Structures are given as structure tokens and as C-alpha cells.
């Protein structure tokens, strides 16, 4: 983001420029409007400047962009002062070239800093959020916002030993910044120090050590270019971001450092008097050569998808200060302006061509690609599940993947348990959003509870999302599994329309929904009891597919989970199930039986022990004859006349033969045979 002043920008134009026009030009070139404020006859506008365009973080850069757009001459930095490089500088400066690309300094003698900064300057600085300190500091800041080069001023008299070192700090130490705040400099931070103390945290902020005040007479003025990464790291660690550090992190034009320094010194002497010494210190170990890139016209057109001819391409680039020389029929040698730090490769130039040509002028053309569609089964299965569950009346939720850090504790899941996880974020937004969920239960229960709090009751939800477990066999150290969770509570079918009682969700509904979805994929699953502490006693079961645990079901234990927000509002039983989707593959089922003869249904009311699974009884019945097509449980009931450990189960058996219409005798034979077996095996009696 960069804020600019319209009045300031106007300094670069002879004719009065129109606000809406310049904003439109900036937008077309990719600089998005971010807001504006009118202050005291000026318009302060914020534009979005992406990290690749530090040359748009100062007024001259913006003027340059607008003038280029209009095909006008690009502004340059001008100053009158002639100087000579000198070893014989009044301060002995030594620079470590590993941390600093260029270091320029000069001395101004006899300034009067009691003189006020000109009003237009303080007004513009204030409008852009920079407080006035004194004329030298203000002019430095002004120059930075004008020409992009951060400037720092030292009081010459306060430089101990008349020596300055620009290097990594050798030890940790505390400094007081010039605005009076403490900062901890760590070993390795780039600092500027003299014989006694740190005078500046390079590129970020000056200390009180050599700060200029209104009593300062002689100034050492510095313009430098420090390495981007160390400035960024120190700035982030100190949590100090200044206009100067912001620019250093993104890159400062090393070619214009000296010119800007001289321009700044000139402005200081004009305003505060004093005299610039002719000797200048300029450490510039690796002089940046003017960079040229060869651009292939064909390659550019291929990538853009247009036919822009070579001459037009040259014309477009030259508008933007890229000097071009045609090498051959296809190649243009392009000189890159020193301030365009982002243009490094041929493809960067192609972007410039496309941008200047205008994205809107590029004609769209659909590609023809010969690729084949790759099937994604897990993804397709999710669609099937959504269809099935919404069809059954379940609503889909999506919750955050991170759940409260105390979840394992609340759920009674211990280290070593299958569902245990301590995969937490290092920087969560809050403790309630810090554990990467190892199960969907907390998410769905929270959604259910939230809905009760906004008076949506009697609900069934499902969610398809991921669960996460530490697992070093993955390159990320984490195994992620797509998982389905489903939850239900309250009334499934309300009373009314001739029905005199509400029908509530029951454990048998939970089982049946699981059965429906597993059946949809042709899967035979088993259930194995597993007493999860967050489930009501005896209700927790693991779901087993081909011998592997793929999920679980249970009735949630509300009193155990009552600390979760709003769970107390849920008055009815809560039924929950979840299973992993990665092992689920659809098995094709075949039609096995066809008959032209009628089928017969018979009901059997069997008094049985509760601990004998109805499923096993059904299996015995079914296996007693191939004429039995189906066995279904229609009801379970308990009567006071029964023994405590017994209940009656109503089975419906469907008979059908391939060969003939069944007679009563045939059926009777079969039923006698299975009733006998059941009686022998489990002592089950047939209640007429």
C-alpha cells in the first residue's frame, strides 16, 4: 500500500492533472484504488502496490508511471552540486559489503535547525502520517516519499571517535530509539555504530545516540541500500515497521542513491543554511551495470496469444523508458531502467508488453488440449454421500478444521487411544481453534448445539471433511483422511396428521442410516463394541470394513460433553457416527434372483434373549432354505410378563420360489425347520 498526495504529484506536471483520469490510468496498469481522504485542499489516496513494484512507493515513481502511460517524458532526479569521492572524509566509515550494497554519506556544516520546516512540507508529511521532528529529519522523510531513497541524518558532534561502522552486531544489546522506545538488538542484526554505541538499526530506525536536534550544527547525511532480508527479519522481530524499513525490504534503487543524497543535502542547505562539503563518501563495491534483456517477438506473441508486430512492441516498451534496439527480425535488446527492480527475465518483459498493450486488447481464444479426464473416486463418492444424506433429510455443515485444545480432555480420549491427537497449531487465533481435529464429533456436536441456541431444533446433520493424525510416513508428518460424520437428535417425525406421538431419532435410526450408506456402496460392514468415554455406556461401536477400523458410532454422552457451548440446550438423545472415506470403493452389485411366481410374507414373533443378536437369528432363518428371499426385523417390544433379559422381536420372512407357486405345506416345512434350529440353539420360542 502506498499513500500519495495529489498536490505533491502535481509538482511533476506542468498542466493541472485530473484526479479521476490519473486514478483510471493507475488502475489500468494494475494499481488498485484502496481508499481516499480529502485533507485541507489536498486528496490523499491509497493505492495497492504489490511487492514487485517498490518503484511505486514514492511520488516520482507514480508520476513516472502516469507520464509513461501518456507517452510523455519521464522525470529524473536533478541536482546542481558537484562532489568528489574521497577517502579523506571527516568521519572514518567502514562498511561490510555483505550487508550493504551502497553507502553514501556527506557532511553539511553550519546548519540552523531552529528554522522551521516549510509549511507545505509538514502539511504533506502529516497528511501521509509522518510527524514533523525538525527540518533535517523532515526533509529526509520528504525526500524518501518523493524519490524512494530512505535518508538518515546524524549529529556530527555526537559521533564518538569520528568513526562509523556498518556491520552485523556482535552481541545482543538494548537501544533507545529516537522516539524514546526500547528495542532489543540481537547479535547479527545490521547496525551502524561508532566507538561507543549503536547509532542506528540499519534501515529501520535511528537511536537517540546521534540524533539531530535543533541544536545540531554539523550533519552527516546518509543514504544507503541495505540487504533486503536482514532488514525484513529484524523489523519483524522488533515489530517495528517504518516507512524506511518497508522500502528496504522491497528493494531500493541502488543506482540513484548518491543523486538522491545530493538532492536532499541541497534542500537542507536551501532551507536551513549551511554548506555541503565537497568530499563525499560513496561505498559502492559492486556497481550495478545497466541491465539488458533480449526479447523474442515470437516468444512474446506466443505467450500473449496475439500478433503484435516488432515495431509496435518497441514503441510500447520505449513509452515506459525501456530503451530498445532491434537485433534481428525477431530479437529486441531491451535496456531495463534502473528503478525497475522487478524486471529480471524475458518473461517479465513479456508481461510489460502485455500490460502496456492492454490486457483488454488481447482477444480471448479457447485452448484445444488433448488431456484425458482422471477419475477421482473419493471425490465422486463424496457426491454420492451428499445425495444420499440430503435425500434422507440431513443438512450439510462445514466447520473449522481446528477445535479447542482441551477437546481430548473433555472427550476422555487418552494418549495411546486410536482417536488421540496433539497436533496443535503453533500460532492459533485462540485456544478454541488450535487442535487439528482427529474426529468430526466436536464439530458436528457444536453445530447441533449452535442451532439449538438459535431455535432450530430436531435436526440431522452431516459433514464431509478431513481428520488429521501425526504420521511420519507422510512427507508432511501428518496423515489426513477424508471423513464423513453424521449426527442427529430430537424428533424425526412429529406427531400430527393422525399420528398421536412424536417419533424421535433412536439408536436404531443411527444403525439404519449407517446401513443405508454402506449398502449404497455395496459394503458389508461389521460392528465391534468399543466403549468410548464420550459415548453412553454400551452404545459405542467401531465400524469394521475388511477387518480394519474405519469409524465408529454411538450415543453421545451429554453429561460428559456438557461443557461444550450450548450442548446443555439439547434435551434429547444425540446419535453420532463417522467413518473414513478413503477405503470406500463402490462395489457393483448383481441382480441374483428372478421369479415369475408370487411371493409370500409371513410374520414371526420370537421371544428371545436380549444378548442374542437379531442379525444372527435372521442369518439362521435365511440359511434354512433358498426359498427364503429376505428376513427383516419389523419391531422390538418388551412386556412386563417377559423375563428381565428377554424381549420379543418381530421378523418378517419373505418366501418365493423360482419353480412354482408355494403351498402352505412347503412354507410350514421350512418354518418348522428354522424354528426348531432357533429353539435348539438359543431356546427361542415362537409367540403366536
Amino acid at each position: 500500500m502506498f499513500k500519495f498526495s495529489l498536490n505533491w504529484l502535481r509538482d511533476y506536471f506542468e498542466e493541472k492533472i485530473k484526479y479521476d483520469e490519473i486514478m483510471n490510468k493507475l488502475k489500468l496498469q494494475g494499481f488498485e484504488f484502496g481508499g481516499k481522504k480529502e485533507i485541507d485542499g489536498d486528496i490523499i489516496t491509497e493505492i495497492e502496490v504489490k511487492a514487485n513494484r517498490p518503484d511505486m512507493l514514492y511520488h516520482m515513481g507514480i508520476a513516472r508511471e502516469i507520464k509513461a502511460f501518456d507517452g510523455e517524458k519521464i522525470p529524473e532526479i536533478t541536482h546542481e552540486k558537484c562532489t568528489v569521492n574521497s577517502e579523506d572524509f571527516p568521519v572514518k566509515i567502514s562498511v561490510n559489503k555483505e550487508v550493504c550494497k551502497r553507502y553514501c554519506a556527506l557532511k553539511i556544516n553550519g546548519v540552523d535547525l531552529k528554522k522551521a520546516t516549510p509549511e507545505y512540507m509538514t502539511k504533506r508529511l502529516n497528511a501521509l502520517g509522518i510527524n514533523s521532528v525538525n527540518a533535517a529529519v523532515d526533509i529526509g522523510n520528504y525526500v524518501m516519499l518523493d524519490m524512494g531513497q530512505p535518508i538518515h541524518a546524524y549529529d556530527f558532534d555526537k559521533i564518538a571517535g569520528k568513526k562509523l561502522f556498518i556491520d552485523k552486531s556482535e552481541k545482543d544489546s538494548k537501544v533507545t530509539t529516537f522516539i524514546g522506545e526500547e528495542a532489543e538488538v540481537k547479535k547479527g542484526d545490521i547496525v551502524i555504530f561508532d566507538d561507543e554505541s549503536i547509532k542506528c538499526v540499519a534501515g529501520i530506525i535511528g537511536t537517540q545516540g546521534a540524533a539531530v536536534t535543533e541544536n545540531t550544527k554539523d550533519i552527516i547525511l546518509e543514504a544507503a541500500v541495505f540487504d533486503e532480508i536482514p532488514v525484513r527479519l529484524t523489523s519483524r522481530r522488533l515489530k517495528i515497521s517504518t516507512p524506511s524499513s518497508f522500502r528496504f525490504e522491497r528493494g531500493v534503487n541502488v543506482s540513484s542513491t548518491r543523486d538522491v543524497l545530493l538532492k536532499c543535502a541541497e534542500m537542507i542547505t536551501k532551507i536551513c543554511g549551511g554548506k555541503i562539503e565537497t568530499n563525499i563518501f560513496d561505498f559502492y563495491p559492486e556497481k550495478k551495470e545497466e541491465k539488458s534483456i533480449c526479447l523474442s517477438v515470437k516468444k512474446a506473441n506466443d505467450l500473449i496469444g496475439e500478433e503484435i508486430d516488432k515495431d509496435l512492441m518497441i514503441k510500447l516498451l520505449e513509452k515506459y523508458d525501456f530503451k530498445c534496439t532491434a537485433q534481428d527480425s525477431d530479437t529486441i535488446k531491451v535496456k531495463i531502467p534502473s528503478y525497475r527492480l522487478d524486471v529480471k527475465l524475458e518473461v517479465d518483459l513479456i508481461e510489460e508488453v502485455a500490460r502496456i498493450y492492454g490486457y483488454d486488447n488481447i482477444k480471448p481464444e479457447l485452448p484445444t488440449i488433448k488431456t484425458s479426464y482422471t477419475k477421482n473416486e473419493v471425490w465422486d463418492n463424496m457426491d454420492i454421500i451428499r445425495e444420499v444424506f440430503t435425500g434422507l433429510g440431513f443438512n450439510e455443515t462445514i466447520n473449522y478444521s481446528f477445535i479447542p485444545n482441551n477437546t481430548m480432555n473433555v472427550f476422555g480420549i487418552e494418549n495411546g487411544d486410536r482417536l488421540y491427537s496433539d497436533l496443535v497449531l503453533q500460532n492459533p487465533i485462540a485456544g478454541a481453534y488450535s487442535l487439528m481435529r482427529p474426529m468430526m464429533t466436536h464439530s458436528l456436536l457444536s453445530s447441533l448445539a449452535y442451532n439449538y441456541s438459535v431455535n432450530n431444533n430436531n435436526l440431522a446433520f452431516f459433514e464431509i471433511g478431513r481428520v488429521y493424525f501425526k504420521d511420519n510416513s507422510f512427507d508432511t508428518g501428518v496423515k489426513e483422511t477424508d471423513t464423513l460424520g453424521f449426527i442427529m437428535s430430537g424428533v424425526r417425525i412429529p406427531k400430527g396428521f393422525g399420528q398421536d406421538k412424536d417419533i424421535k431419532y433412536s439408536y436404531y435410526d443411527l444403525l439404519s442410516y449407517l446401513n443405508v450408506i454402506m449398502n449404497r456402496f455395496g459394503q458389508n460392514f461389521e460392528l465391534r463394541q468399543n466403549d468410548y468415554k464420550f459415548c453412553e455406556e454400551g452404545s459405542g461401536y467401531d465400524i469394521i470394513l475388511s477387518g480394519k477400523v474405519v469409524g465408529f458410532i454411538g450415543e453421545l454422552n451429554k453429561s460428559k460433553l456438557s461443557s461444550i457451548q450450548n450442548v446443555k440446550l439439547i434435551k434429547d438423545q444425540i446419535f453420532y457416527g463417522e467413518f473414513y472415506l478413503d477405503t470406500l470403493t463402490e462395489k457393483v452389485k448383481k441382480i441374483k434372483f428372478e421369479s415369475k411366481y408370487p411371493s409370500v410374507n409371513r410374520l414371526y414373533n420370537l421371544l428371545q434373549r436380549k444378548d442374542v443378536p437379531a442379525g444372527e437369528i435372521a442369518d439362521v432363518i435365511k440359511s434354512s432354505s433358498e426359498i427364503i428371499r429376505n428376513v427383516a426385523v419389523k419391531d422390538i417390544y418388551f412386556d412386563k410378563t417377559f423375563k428381565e433379559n428377554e424381549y420379543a422381536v418381530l421378523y418378517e420372512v419373505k418366501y418365493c420360489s423360482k419353480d412354482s407357486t408355494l403351498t402352505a405345506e412347503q412354507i410350514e416345512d421350512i418354518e418348522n425347520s428354522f424354528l426348531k434350529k432357533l429353539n435348539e440353539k438359543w431356546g427361542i420360542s415362537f409367540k403366536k
Partner: protein
Amino acid sequence: MSAEIIKDIENKKTELESLLKNAKDLKEVSSLKIEYLKKYVKSLYSELKNASVEEKKSLGKIINDFKNFAEEKIKEAEAKYKQEKSAAKYDVTIFKDSIRLGSMHPLTKLYKKIEKVFVGMGFSVVQGPEIETDKYNFEKLNLPPHHPARDMQDTFYISAPNVLLRSHTSSVQIRTMEKLKPPVQIISPGTVYRVDDIDPQHTPMFYQIEGLVVAEKISFANLKAVLIKFLKEVFGDEVGVRFRPSYYPYTEPSAAVDMSCTKCGGKGCKTCRNTGWITVLGSGMVHPNVLEGVGYDSKKYTGFAFGLGLNRLALAYYNLDEIRKLYENDISLWRQI
């Protein structure tokens, strides 16, 4: 003789009229129709046979007039009864609240619509991990450590600096390219994470759809065509689309894609901050460094990539005000769509 007949016809006219008036239902009208229009008219015609040539002419006209008259009156009566309903057996304005489909999440619903467009154009859907390494989330996307563009994506860490929650699904594109040879045409939908507190306009998690096409001779013009087709198919033909220069480290040239505001139609409103446009996509030509990084020959292959945040798009699509509502799961909102 004819005078008698004429008189009788006149009588029958009045008779029929009053009988039709008092008829209770369609059945009665039908029997009158048989009586008067069929039987009686038939008998008149048989009388006509006996008449003289003179009489035939005038009587014939009178009979015809009667026939027309009777037809018209019976038709009227029939129409009247056909309009009248029988007593209602059921109140057809009553629907049971308990019989309804469950609702899909609005994000899923919108996502599926978008997916369909891309799958229709031949894109495959790929997935990848949400917990990622720095290598796939940043480095291989031309974002070396300490790159200032990393500031755009404030990242959650599992163990800094290497294991993190992906801040975009571009990581899936890298993983896919490492596995497949070009041509590649994929979308990588999924949940992504960026550090943001939960408030009406922010959530620390959102859904992203990224797309990638790499093949020989893929151009920016191709990118434009695919994205215009996508936006018009989802938001309607009337929607305006524009491309602006932008910057992403992993694409060059890069473009932000704006769509004319669906709320105000481009006139300017709160949603589009009075600009008439909403930025919906980031896109660009895949940077050669990215292609080379996965072992593709960037001289031979070019490609484009794009990404969109589904949540912001959903606000515009459903006219929803608060983005955080998408994760509150208040089912009364879902049921409206």
C-alpha cells in the same frame, strides 16, 4: 301443420332454457342434450320429409335456428358446470414440514456449479494435503524464504518454519505436476487457511478453487477465454469481465480478474465499493521458474493458472452479508437456498 310445429319449437326453446337453468349438474345437462338436441331435432327432421317444397325451405331454416340455439345454450350450461369444482377432499395448501430434503451447504452448492463448468471443459479434479511443507506451499511457487510477497498470506504453523497449513491450493498443483507429464488440465479445490480473526468479514479458513493448464502453446488469450467462459456460465451471459495487471510470484504475466457487480449490475453499491466491479480471480501465465522447478521444459511448455476464493464469491452469489456465517451452520439460512 307447420304452424303447430313452429309453435312447438318455440315452446321447446323456452322449456329448454328453463330446464338448463335449473339443471343441477353436468349429468342433467347431458341428458337434456340428448333429449333436445338429438332426439327432438331428429324428430323435427323426420317431420320435414313430409312437408311441401315451400314449407321445407322455411321450416328447415327454423329447425336449423333451433338447433343452433340449443347447441349454444347447452354449451354455455356445460361450460358453467365444468368450471365449478366438486367439494374439495384435501386442502392442497398444506405441506408437511417433516417431509423435506436436507440442505447442502451453500459453499458446496456453489462449488458444484463451478466444478461442472470446468469438468465440462475437460479439467480433472485433484486433491492434496491441507497440512503442507514450506517447499510446496511457497518455495516451489517461486516464493523463497523471506520474500515480501509472503506477507500477503499470513500462515498458520504446525511446526515453524517447515510444516504449515496451506495458504492456497497451489501446493496441490505443484504436487500434481511432479507426478504427471504435460499436458495437464486440473482444478484443485479445497480448504485453505490464513491467520485472521473471526469477525463478520473474516475467517481463518476458506475454500479455494485453483486451476492449472500446462501444454504446448498455451497463451494468455487462452487464459482469458477459459475464465470468461467460466464466469459467464456461472453468473450469466450478461456479466462483464475485465483483466487487470497484477502480481503473483508464481505467474508472469499476472492478472486480476474483475466481474461486473452482480448486486448492482455495475452501477456501484456497497458490495463493489462503488466501483461497479468485484475482483473474483487471480490468474496468470505460470512462471518459468515454477515449471522448471517441477521438471517441465519451460521452453516447450507454457501454461496458465488461476485461483478463486469461494467464500467471497458466495457472498455475492447468495447476497449474504457476513462471511463468517458460512461456518456458523445456521440451518435456517441453508434452507432458503
